[in-house]
């Protein structure tokens, strides 16, 4: 066990956990930020995507020790009122079916648009390919990203 000082959604947080604990489980079990989802545990599905200093990162493979000193943003902190352009576009296109993967999809999409405000179809495919949607909402995700890109 060790103390870690984290900056999550602009707030400093202290946790006392094993240094190997992935950020995912610190968020979910210790900080009650359960919007970040467990899907595979091996960075293959993207359900656990968060932003680490603005980059989309799979939190299931990020040891807590590596998150110290970085700005962590989770789905809960993406916007004050759920009104980030990506979130608004997700509602406009009524993207979710089961909804489980969508926080990860939104975090990947928001990171993409922050770096590339007008992505091409190929850019979107490349940036989003690590996020599985078992319900198959890929077309709506792409359409929502394009809508969001126009409302940044």
């Amino acid at each position, binding site marked *: 066990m060790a103390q870690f000082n984290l900056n999550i959604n602009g707030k400093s947080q202290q946790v006392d956990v094993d240094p190997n604990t992935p950020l995912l489980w610190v968020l979910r*079990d210790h900080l009650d930020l*359960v*919007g970040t*989802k467990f899907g595979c545990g091996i960075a293959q599905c993207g359900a656990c995507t968060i932003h680490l200093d603005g980059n989309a990162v799979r939190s299931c493979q990020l040891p807590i020790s590596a998150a110290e000193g970085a700005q962590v943003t989770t789905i809960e902190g993406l916007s004050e009122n*759920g009104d980030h352009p990506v979130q608004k576009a997700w509602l406009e296109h009524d993207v*979710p079916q089961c909804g489980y993967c969508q926080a990860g999809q939104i975090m990947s999409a928001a990171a993409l648009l922050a770096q590339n405000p007008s992505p091409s*179809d190929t850019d979107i495919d490349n940036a989003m390919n*690590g996020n599985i*949607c078992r319900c*198959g909402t890929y077309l709506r995700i792409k359409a929502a990203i394009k809508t969001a890109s126009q409302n940044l």
Partner: protein
Amino acid sequence: MTTVNTKMNRRSFLKASALAGGGMMLSFAWLAGCKPTEEEMMGLPKEWFELNSYIKIGENGAVTLYSPNPEFGSNVKTSMPMILAEELDTDWKHVFVEQADFYPERFDRQFTGGSQGIRQGWTPLRTAGATARAMLVSAAAQSWNVPASEITTNAGQIEHKASGNKAHYGEMASLAATLEVPEEVTLKEIKNFNIIGTSKKNVDGQKIITGKPLFAIDHKVEGMKYAALVMPPAFGMQLKSFDKSSVMGMSGIIDAFPISLFKEDYARNFFDTTTFPEVVAIVGNSTWEVMQAKKNLTAEWEKAPETTFPMAGRGGGTSTAVVPAGLENTNRHKARMAEYIQKPGNVVRRDGDPEGMFNKAAKVLERTYTAPFLAHNTMEPMNCFANVKGDKAIIYGPTQAPEFISGTIAQALGIPKENIQINLARMGGGFGRRAYSHHMTEAALISQKIQAPVKMVYTREDDMSAGVYRPTYSATYRAALDENNNLLAFHVKAGGIPETPLHANRFPAGAIDHYLAEAWDIPSNITIGAFRAPRSNFIAGAEQSFLDELAEEMGKDPIEFRLELLKRAETNPVGERNDYEPKRYAGVLELVRDKSNWTSQQSNVSRGVSAYFCHNSYVAEVVDTVIKDNQPVVESVYAAVDCGIVVNPDAARNMGEGAIVDGIGNAFFGELTFENGAPTKRNFDKYRMIRHKEAPKKIEVHFVENNEDPTGLGEPLFPPVFAALANSLYKATGKRYYEQPFAPQLEMENLKM
């Protein structure tokens, strides 16, 4: 005018002052759409008045509608309340939706599966809505001393034009709640619908996009412990012993013990399918710690002998189920299936003289199709929260079928069923997998042992390797043709491990004079169960691929060929047990022909068509592929669907798009294989799922407009995709695809996958 007798659904009108579970979170129908203006905002009332199991109305006119069925992504949590709201004649903006807990005394059929939610909920929900409306009208009639028949309602307002009286529902709710439930109520005319048939946003949309806790895996209560399971490494293996000390010293670990899901004399039900009836549970202070301990647990496993157990029959009585011994292999499965393909099967249907016609055929076309086991791979792994104290239990988990697990939990815990409260979590996918809810029994047993609340979570590896899979199947089709290429007879022989996929009375049965259907099956100890359109999801692909090849052999357009067969089935059907309506079947083929511009095909696009009927709905699909940079790309998919009245069109299209993506993914990549009883794929690094890049570039879902009562939608768009894709790939590559998944064969054509 339709009147319905409310006695049919009497239990819907039971009232209980305290609702089970105390209500999870309300979902605001209007929040999911555009932000309402200040005036549009309907705040929470001071008091609710319950009109029946589904509906309560506040004094300010706000309406809470309970969505009875579990939600796994098919959007019933929005569409079922829409049906209530329609007949209640309220304004959707006044509606709050709440997920009902499992409460069989109050709700009919709280089951999500078989594409039956809307179909079977249609009349009960309309009746409940219309009854509440009638009671509000009666209350107004009493208050104003005017005849109820002169009172009209509109969007939550009640009016008696002659006297000039007006009120909103909230003003009449307290009186209405005390009135007798009318014996008979009148339902709306379909032409007067103003909620059904208009697209409403997902009522949980806002919560999903902001990461609110919605799923059982997100649940947490004070003092809750975490648990993981260690399961036998392969089908055909069982626990011999384990060393508790191998994990007890580890950080955060509290206990480790075996749990057994079934008492010996318990007669299991159809949905009690459980991969391993005895597993080791590890309990600790956090998910990560119990997952670490899982890796460290020392256990001895042994080969399981053949086992038998009692199965409860549907109409009472019990039979004996047998689970064979042995460690199974995919190679051996294939070899055994090849043997069965050569042997006669059990004849399930014979029309005319098929054998005689095959004997005198000038030409016989014979093809065999196969598909592997598939894992469901819901994005949310199996998990459950349970809190068992003394003889009381609260279970909160992802289940499609609470009714079928409640008795199982009761026998496992040894406490009465009525002391077990099952609350329904939103599910991170289902696809049939969560019709089998042994994860709830597992969590309950762990909580009972430690007498504390617990959340049990499967790892992805547990979820994938201890599944309730789609079986592996095979189907052999034969067609007898005369010297002029006329179709004389048709023969299908289909089987699988451990069940046959055959539906002997479906098309093209009924369209061909001489028809033979045979079935076979091979027992196995690998657990199988429902997977989005069970059996249909394979046999549709086989049948519709064969019809495509047959049409080509006969020199006919594949749509025209099917329409000819359907015309025959409509005008002069063979046999009496044909379980489809040829006219509606033809209708979707005609619609897809029109919407895809089938007759004016572009030369650079390779198209395939397919059509299928299952879950009471008709679907035809056209898939367009192109080979781009040496890679097959699905450009467009056109679907035509006849599922009767569509309650929520945009959400219905969403689900249709998803089913098509799912089908293309499984057709290209889906495959689970076994070595010595163990699945060879345990996570998404090996089990290939369709991703963004492989999704079709465009999908159009078109609905046949009619006033038929709604039928299935979650499943019917899935089965036809396999053949539409295969037939399109044939056009693109010149090769037929008989074996799923297609990707390895396409790679052999030097294509990139």
